[in-house]
């Protein structure tokens, strides 16, 4: 049940496989309201799987464990139901939908997620205009087709534009920093902060690098290796990792070092 004490996201003992191969081998994660957490890890460590599973990607099989959004179980919810409950995923590789205009798509999505009222009239237009200005997205963008022919940076900005308009309770950002230059990272970070800071919402940032974390300033950093969270700590953990590398970190974990 929803209550002030519930974390916005709670993941308990999550084991996940795809086509017989086990990927996540027991994940526990708690994100309290108003906090931004980061998961760092190498390619293939299970970061993207974690993001996809929270959103409800149908290709994955949940072998064990549970997920809760503000105390409510996500397990039986379809992706669109999770979205309407307030889960958002910024994709690492957003899909293009030729023929579907950005403006039209945004209005429909806002209507589906936040209700018809929110997608109507001047309020929607004002929100859209100000979010686009904040993200340095030109007006002409609205008549283009969703992600069709977008550059890497445009795709990422468009994900954040959707984040800002859909106002999710939990935003999961899968490598939103990759493909962005430093100005892009700054802009996108502003967007993420504006959705979470000082609210009851939360965010999970998935990344290879600590660069974006300098701008977002996460409350907690988790390191994922081989489908498990092997270390958790404050923001300085990201810097330690950046300075010393994953091999070093793995050694420390084996030695039993606690990064708290």
């Amino acid at each position, binding site marked *: 049940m929803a209550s002030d004490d519930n974390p916005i996201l709670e993941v308990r003992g999550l084991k996940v496989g795809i086509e017989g191969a086990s990927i996540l081998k027991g994940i526990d994660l708690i994100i309290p309201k108003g906090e931004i957490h980061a998961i760092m890890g190498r390619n293939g460590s299970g970061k993207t799987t974690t993001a996809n599973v929270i*959103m*409800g*990607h*149908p*290709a994955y099989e949940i072998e064990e464990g549970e997920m809760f959004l503000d105390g409510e179980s996500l397990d039986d919810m*379809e*992706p*669109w139901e*999770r*979205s*309407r409950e307030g889960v*958002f*995923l910024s*994709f690492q*590789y*957003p*899909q293009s*939908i*030729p*023929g*579907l205009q950005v403006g039209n*798509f945004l209005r*429909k*999505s806002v209507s*589906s*997620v936040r209700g018809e009222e929110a997608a109507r009239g001047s309020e929607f237009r004002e929100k859209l205009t100000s979010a686009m200005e904040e993200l340095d997205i030109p007006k002409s963008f609205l008549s283009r*087709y*969703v992600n069709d022919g977008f550059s890497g940076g445009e795709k990422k900005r468009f994900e954040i534009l*959707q984040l800002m308009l*859909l106002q999710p309770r939990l935003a999961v950002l899968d490598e939103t920093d990759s493909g962005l230059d430093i100005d892009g990272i700054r802009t996108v970070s502003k967007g993420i902060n504006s959705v979470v800071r000082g609210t009851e919402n939360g965010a999970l940032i998935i990344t290879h690098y600590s660069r974006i974390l300098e701008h977002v300033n996460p409350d907690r950093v988790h390191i994922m290796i081989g489908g498990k969270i092997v270390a958790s700590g404050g923001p300085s953990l990201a810097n330690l990792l950046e300075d010393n590398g994953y091999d070093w970190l793995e050694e420390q974990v084996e030695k039993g070092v606690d990064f708290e």
Partner: protein
Amino acid sequence: MSGDSEAREAVGDYKAGWHDPENATIRFDFGLSEKVVRDISELKQEPEWMTEIRVKAYRHFVERPMPTWGNTEELMEIDFDKVCYFLRSSDQAGSSWDDVPDDIRNTFDRLGIPEAEQKWLSGVTAQYESETVYHSIREDLEKQGVIFLDMDSGLKEHEDIVKKYFGSVIPYSDNKFSALNTAVWSGGSFIYVPKGVHVEMPVQAYFRINAKNMGQFERTLIIADEGSSIHYVEGCTAPTYSTDSLHSAVVELLALPGAHIRYTTVQNWSNNVYNLVTKRGVAHENAKIEWVDGNIGSKLTMKYPAVILKGEGAHAEVISVAYAGNGQHQDAGAKVHHMASNTTSNILSKSISKDGGRGSYRGMAKIMPKAENCRLNIVCDALILDEESRQDTYPTMEVGNPTAHCEHEASVSKVGDEQLFYLMSRGHTEAEALGMIVNGFFEPFTRELPMEYAVELNKLMSLEMEGSIG
């Protein structure tokens, strides 16, 4: 994927599938003979030359074998003896909806025709079974000399023009179904746009089959005189019966020098209608003919709108979409013949198949040896929504002149699970997501339609994706 089966389930009830009681004033017995052909002509009090063409066409129809391409199996299932070739439902064509018999008027009300007429059309004809039951044109256009009549009235009132052009673009001997149409044609539109007149708002014809085992054979002839322009829109529906109906139209367009004809079709016949139509236009010097052709309904459609680029600088545009659902085969495409130099053509075909439906693109593009510097561009895209459905492409290109510039692109794709997941993560159900992808795929066609049609088509396709219409 859960929800998959629901979203991709067969399409439910067809929205325009109701039927009204049949109140025929004249109804011919089933079957075709020379007598039936002569009777139709006599009933219409036609000039002798027309009767003669009909009879010749009938004889050709009897001798001509079925096409050996398209869907030969389904073509062979047509029983020409179980078709009603003429059915009159109203003794006259009204020029006010008040003059149209109540039951027929209700049908067109339900289809939204009178409403559309008031809002955005220059003129309307409504054909019910074999004949036009309603017809009107805006006064200002009539004053400018624009003729917009049903074909039967066209023959009565403008015999000279009809005699000159009837069958000049599509002779009865063109194919088996053009022969059939020429033999038993009834209704359709006759349009003449005088030199330099631009008809700004579209004129619309609506074709409705109501009776069982009905054959509808409208005949349309549009002549756009020098420097004129017109946009003609047609829509069609029929009730859903367990037995089949036959729709076999012939449409001839003449765009004289500098004229522009756009012919838009949104065909949504019920899934028991054979739709075997011949459409062809001749474009003279610097004229432009556009076919905007949407095939959503029918059991089997075989239709390849054609343009003969006869004069220098003429341009052809054929944009078509086809949707083949359960039990449907859309065999559609385009033909262009570049007869003159500096002629250009663009063909864009978009085809979707779902629930075991079958779509084929069949195209013929010819550039004659004497035609210099022609440009031809063909793009065919197909989208398959499930494993049971099928898409084929049969393109033919004959390039007889080395200065021609030809391009041909074809693609077949499937809806990706990742695309669906992306849209679902934005709050859209799987059916809504599929609808967005499908409408996006058709967008290059939809944006060419009058807004009212575009909205309707988007709604229709979204409903098809939900698997429930009503």
